[in-house]
């Protein structure tokens, strides 16, 4: 495929703030997944490639929770409350923790004394097993999705950056009124004559064309009015997703920095064997790490599947986000917790900026480009220290 040549000419500056905002919201999910990668790497020096599949199972857990709450396809309840979202979030985090612990106990622990490459291959094998084996018992064809009615936070929050031109707005409103009048005239005609709106006589056609003409005029003026201002519009659900992510990260930071277990975790990360010699129960710390990382992935999956409405869930749901989050973790500096968050947000923004620049088709490819660039020029990552590792 040839590259589109409008790159420099066609950049739409007006959409840049909105695209950056989209990217940050999207990146918060990558950040949540990246935290799991980075913590496990920090403690075990293992890239847990099955982490994307934990994310996938988290989305399924949220789906099942939503079905259990009564939001089944085609027969969903109409209203919802934040409590439902909490239940789904909690269930998804819990289910993922269990999955994470099971994976660590039965797949990675037996491999721990083996060369590191053995664990890596185990991780890839496990990832494929869950992707393909999952199709046997998880509903995936046709791919289900969480009903958007479970989310009580519909609508957008508008953040104006530059106010609209008042004169345009007034004109647009006036024109909209005229459009409503002629639309009503057409509707009354349809009602009284009982004709099929897609099979009209000349009178009906004239009325319809007049109505559509007015509607187009009103739309053009409305567009002009909205183009005269600049604003960012953020779906409420995704804002909640973003703030929940921040809260979860704050909790994680507290656990890692200010609790005994967190201190033990850092000790294990610093030197696995010495930590064990100092009386730290290394196995329990590793398990704890998997619980934290998997729970965050579960939270990310639940919010991704719920707040990005209509997102379909299949057994490959975690693959691309997983790979992107892995790149995010490397970008931030693998093993580094703030780095994972920064990397995740940057990945989200990079992805939407690629779309903004007109390279829609390369949206997913940008992750690999970033990975290669980071490894070439700064293998330690943005916040990571390139320290010499004891072998």
């Amino acid at each position: 495929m040839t590259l589109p040549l409008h790159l420099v000419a066609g950049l739409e500056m007006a959409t840049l703030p909105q695209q950056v905002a989209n990217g940050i919201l999207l990146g918060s999910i990558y950040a949540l997944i990246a935290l799991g990668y980075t913590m496990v790497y920090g403690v075990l020096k293992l890239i847990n490639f099955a982490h994307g599949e934990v994310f996938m199972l988290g989305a399924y857990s949220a789906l099942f929770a939503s079905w259990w709450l009564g939001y089944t396809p085609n027969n969903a309840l109409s209203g919802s409350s934040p409590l439902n979202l909490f239940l789904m979030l909690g269930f998804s985090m819990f289910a993922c923790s269990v999955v994470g612990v099971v994976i660590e106990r039965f797949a990675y622990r037996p491999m721990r004394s083996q060369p590191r490459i053995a664990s890596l291959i185990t991780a890839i094998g496990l990832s494929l097993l869950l992707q393909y084996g999952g199709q046997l018992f998880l509903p995936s064809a046709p791919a289900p999705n969480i009903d958007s009615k479970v989310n009580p936070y519909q609508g957008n929050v508008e953040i104006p950056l530059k106010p609209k031109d008042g004169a345009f707005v007034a004109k647009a409103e006036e024109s909209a009124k005229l459009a409503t009048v002629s639309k009503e005239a057409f509707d009354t005609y349809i009602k009284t004559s009982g004709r099929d709106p897609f099979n009209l006589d000349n009178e009906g056609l004239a009325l319809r064309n007049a109505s559509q003409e007015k509607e187009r005029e009103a739309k053009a003026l409305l567009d002009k009015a909205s183009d005269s201002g600049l604003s960012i519009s953020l779906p409420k659900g995704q804002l909640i997703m973003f703030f929940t992510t921040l809260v979860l990260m704050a909790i994680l930071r507290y656990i890692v920095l200010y609790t005994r277990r967190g201190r033990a975790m850092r000790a294990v990360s610093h030197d696995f064997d010495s930590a064990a010699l100092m009386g730290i129960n290394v196995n329990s710390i590793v398990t704890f790490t998997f619980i934290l990382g998997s729970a965050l992935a579960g939270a990310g999956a639940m919010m991704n599947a719920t707040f990005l409405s209509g997102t379909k869930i299949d057994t490959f749901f975690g693959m691309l986000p997983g790979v992107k989050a892995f790149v995010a973790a490397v970008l931030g500096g693998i093993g580094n917790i703030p780095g994972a968050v920064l990397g995740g947000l940057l990945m989200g923004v990079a992805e939407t900026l690629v779309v903004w620049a007109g390279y829609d088709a390369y949206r997913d490819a940008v992750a690999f480009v970033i990975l290669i660039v980071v490894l070439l020029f700064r293998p330690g990552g943005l916040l990571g220290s390139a320290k010499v590792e004891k072998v």
Partner: protein
Amino acid sequence: MKQIERNLWTAALAAVALGMIGCGGGDTATKAPEGTGTETPAAAAGARPTPTAEGNKVAGDTIKIGIIGSLSGDQKPWGEDSVDGAKIAVEEFNAAGGVDGKKVELLVGDSASKAEQAKTAAEKLMSDGVIGIVGEVASGHTIQIAKAAFAKGVPVVAVGATRTDLTSEGTHVFRVCYTDAFQGPVMAKFAYEELGLRNVALMTDNKQPYSQGLSKSFNDYFTKLGGKIVGEAFYESGQTQFSGQLTELKAKNPDGLFLSGYFTEVGPIAQQAKAAGLNVKYLGGDGWDSPQLLVSGGEAILGSYFCNHFNNKESRPEVAAFLSKWKAAKNGKEPGTTMGALGYDATKMLLEALKTSKAMDSKALTAAIESVENFNGVSGSITLKGQGGNPPKDALVVEVRPESEGFQVFKKRYAFFKE
């Protein structure tokens, strides 16, 4: 330092490899020739190569016919319906005595919603001795089937594959549906004349030859009518997040959005478009045709329009007869998608051609299908003689309504026209 680096490179390679596995699904599909979406059937006919291979011959007392559909994966609703339709047609044919005292045996192949699987399934069926293949629904899959069948000289009757240049794969390829060279213009005409839209934006699935062809034919005809295509955004099947593309399209101020992809992505796109404030009319092609669209599209998709082959509510006697047979076979359920009827039509047409076929082999069968005239299908009358494999057919525009109102409600019929 060195150690970290080496670990990361290993991991990175693994990550890239994992990514590759995921992308493999569409590789073969995207290699289909591009830019021929609006070729007229006549032009396509001129370029059609004829297979030289001998094809299969009937051995013994049963005539083997193959059907390929997606029995797993995203397109399962279509695969199941088309296979069920084919089964009904074969049962009916055998009950009526078959042909020359021989019964027909239907072999089923699963394309698993993947182009390369479709090819494997076709090769398997042909080595099992089928003299003709029915299928598939998706154009990208059918192109692979057609290529495999060309090498063996076995005729293919596509069920719902509408990509225009599909039949230029060879004189052994036929279909029972309209092409995108008609479907695109129908939706363009409907959007321009009935809905009064003038500035439409397109969203195309870059992984599906069907979507690329349909976007192009819509684009060409809508522009010809005097409308303007204000922008086009691309995505790939399997993506779940479209806010970036939708933000770009919204900035172009369209009054309509033409979504030429499959229902699997159209639902989420509609929901996210509405969330992004793109409150315009959504339009699409027969790729929308599955009630699953209501599940993934929620309320956002209601009131949208798409193009389809036929409607369960039509008053023609063929429709009523087909529905009663279907209900008898499926516990009183109506077919969810139109692919049930098209699968039935494709199979029945092939079986009827067997009756006029001079011999029980692939070559004679191909000639017999080529000379089909005025076959009374559930989806309308089908004539293939001299049409280059593409029967001229009507198209219906339907509106998306809730399940309780029957999912797709008939709005307007368009008789076949050439642009």
